[in-house]
């Protein structure tokens, strides 16, 4: 505020100079022409000062914090997707495409292992690493038998987690606010010590029963309330989802390829067809707090966006039940029956990035995903092509800055399970989660923070995000990338790690809110 007052004073002084010049012109020989001549150089200077001030204010403005701005009602979904709509999504697909198995997801493997090592009911461990692969239950046993290298990498995670917990005492003051903030946000679905919350307290509740029962629970109408048209349905549902807090919303017919096979929430392991009531997916996106996101891996969290996504999912599920339609929420951190990024791509929200994340025009990678599956007949959105794949081929910043060398730096994507994408070494990613200076396994998010698409909403970035996808020559993207690499200073990959490997570096300085020494009577030793 003091800075702004200072600026106002400067403006005032400059204003007096103009008046002074005009006054002297009048005293000598009043002539409007001379007055304007005298004033125009000052006006030229004031124009530059004014535009610089406007730029500074635009950079600082809370209205540039997409998804956290002062306005709502869908105003965060400001990018005009119409010119970029395509009939088919931009991820390449081969004839060999297949559905993902439940155990193909790293999260699902880790949750299962965690529940075996530390059973939620407090009973003795059902499995520990020393018992070996043979004692693991299916389908993990078969999965790891086919991939012994993945099993070895998974085993390596456990001592890293122990070491991380032990190291926390070195950082518990420096990152106290960030850790408390993160745990507070997570408290709607996990206990403070990392144990899963009592499932009765979860919102939305975890399914208890097959979709044909669970997804219809709470419906009090004999018949669903009929919409005037699919267009009316999609419009109302999108507006309502925005009102629940979503920044971006898209609707697609659910491609069964994106549903996990071998496990169904509420039922358990087994072979399942995709339920008929999952005809459509309403996909919604919220971002992380921007300032702490840029200060990852130590000052940020996934749980701010996760908590919001969970609430939106639960509210939307209930809203559809109230109208008489079946609905099931698929929400973070790992309560999904479907793989989210490709469904969001199908719903026209963005494209797949090198880092395997959804890249949206408004939020870049700062986009956390959830959806509600339902059979409300709705008008669907088409996928978009804003040139992310071409940009990612050239950029590689996420791959270069990842401390775990997790993201492929190959020029071209590979075919993974029939789909073209850059390879991600999931276990190596988990090793970084378990190595950064946090109290427990809370993620890393460096690849989200350093992505050039992950930018707030001010005029400067709006210029880039609107001009670049309209330039078929690729010159704009090359120029922007050159500027990105020359102007912006990124820490080296290893610097993100705690000492002795690194120095707990962050891309941006941590926000004031997260600086413990600013608020607490502690000695700053870092």
């Amino acid at each position: 505020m003091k800075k702004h007052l200072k600026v106002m004073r400067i403006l005032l002084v400059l204003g007096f100079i103009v008046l002074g010049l005009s006054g002297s012109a009048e005293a000598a020989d009043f002539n409007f022409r001379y007055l304007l001549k005298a004033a125009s150089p000052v006006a030229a200077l004031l124009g530059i000062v004014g535009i610089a001030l406007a730029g500074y204010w635009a950079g600082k403005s809370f209205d540039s914090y997409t998804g956290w701005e002062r306005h709502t009602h869908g105003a965060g979904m400001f990018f005009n997707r119409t010119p970029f709509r395509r009939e088919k999504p931009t991820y390449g697909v081969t004839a060999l495409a297949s559905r993902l198995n439940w155990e193909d997801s790293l999260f699902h493997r880790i949750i299962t292992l965690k529940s075996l090592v530390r059973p939620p009911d407090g009973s003795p461990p059902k499995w520990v690493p020393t018992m070996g692969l043979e004692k693991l239950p299916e389908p993990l046993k078969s999965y790891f038998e086919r991939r012994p290298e993945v099993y070895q990498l998974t085993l390596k995670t456990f001592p890293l987690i122990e070491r991380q917990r032990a190291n926390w005492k070195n950082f518990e003051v420096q990152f106290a606010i960030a850790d408390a903030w993160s745990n507070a946000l997570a408290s709607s679905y996990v206990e403070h010590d990392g144990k899963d919350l009592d499932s009765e307290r979860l919102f939305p509740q975890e399914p208890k029963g097959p979709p044909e029962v669970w997804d219809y629970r709470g419906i009090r109408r004999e018949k669903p309330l009929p919409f005037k048209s699919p267009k009316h349905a999609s419009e109302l549902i999108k507006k309502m989802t925005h009102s629940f807090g979503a920044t971006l919303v898209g609707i697609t017919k659910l491609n069964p390829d994106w549903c996990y096979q071998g496990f169904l929430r509420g039922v358990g392991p087994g072979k399942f067809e995709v339920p008929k009531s999952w005809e459509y997916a309403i996909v919604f996106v919220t971002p992380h707090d921007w300032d702490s996101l840029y200060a990852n891996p130590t000052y940020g969290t996934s749980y701010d966006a996760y908590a919001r996504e969970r609430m939106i999912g639960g509210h939307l599920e209930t809203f559809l039940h109230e109208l008489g339609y079946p609905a099931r929420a698929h929400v973070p951190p790992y309560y999904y029956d479907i793989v989210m990024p490709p469904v969001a791509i199908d719903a026209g929200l963005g494209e797949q990035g090198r880092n395997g994340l959804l890249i949206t025009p408004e939020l870049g990678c700062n986009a956390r995903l959830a959806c509600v599956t339902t059979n409300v007949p709705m008008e669907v959105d088409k996928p978009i092509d804003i040139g992310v794949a071409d940009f990612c081929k050239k950029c590689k910043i996420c791959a270069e800055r990842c401390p775990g060398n997790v993201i492929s730096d190959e020029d071209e994507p590979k075919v993974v399970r029939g789909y073209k994408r850059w390879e991600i070494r999931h276990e190596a990613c988990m090793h970084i989660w378990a190595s950064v200076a946090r109290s427990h396994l809370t993620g890393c998010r460096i690849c989200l923070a350093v992505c050039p698409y992950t930018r707030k909403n001010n005029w400067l970035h709006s210029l880039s995000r609107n001009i670049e996808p309209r330039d078929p020559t690729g010159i704009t993207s090359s120029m922007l990338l050159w500027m990105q690499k020359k102007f912006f200073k990124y820490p080296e990959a290893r610097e993100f790690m705690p000492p002795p490997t690194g120095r707990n570096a962050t891309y941006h300085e941590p926000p004031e809110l997260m600086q413990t020494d600013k608020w607490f009577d502690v000695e700053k030793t870092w």
Partner: protein
Amino acid sequence: MLIYSTFFQPLFWTVMGLIYAVLIVGARYWAQDLGLHMTWWKWLLVALWYVLLSFAFAGGFTLMGEREPKAGGRHLAFFLAIAVVLGALLWIVVL
């Protein structure tokens, strides 16, 4: 905060509009008195140069505002250098 109030922003841009009006009218008189034979395309080039100069400052300070001081400084230096070179060329060759 006053800066982001619904009162300040329109007022600010109204004042900026007045400043630009003075600049444009005054520039015309300067050109006449300096004996410059201005045509529409010369005015266009001058206007584009001023936009570039404004972009250098506005972009640089926007980045500084969003906690990217190094990037802001580099943006300012890069585009200011281009603006100075192009300004000199404009003055010597075109005007």
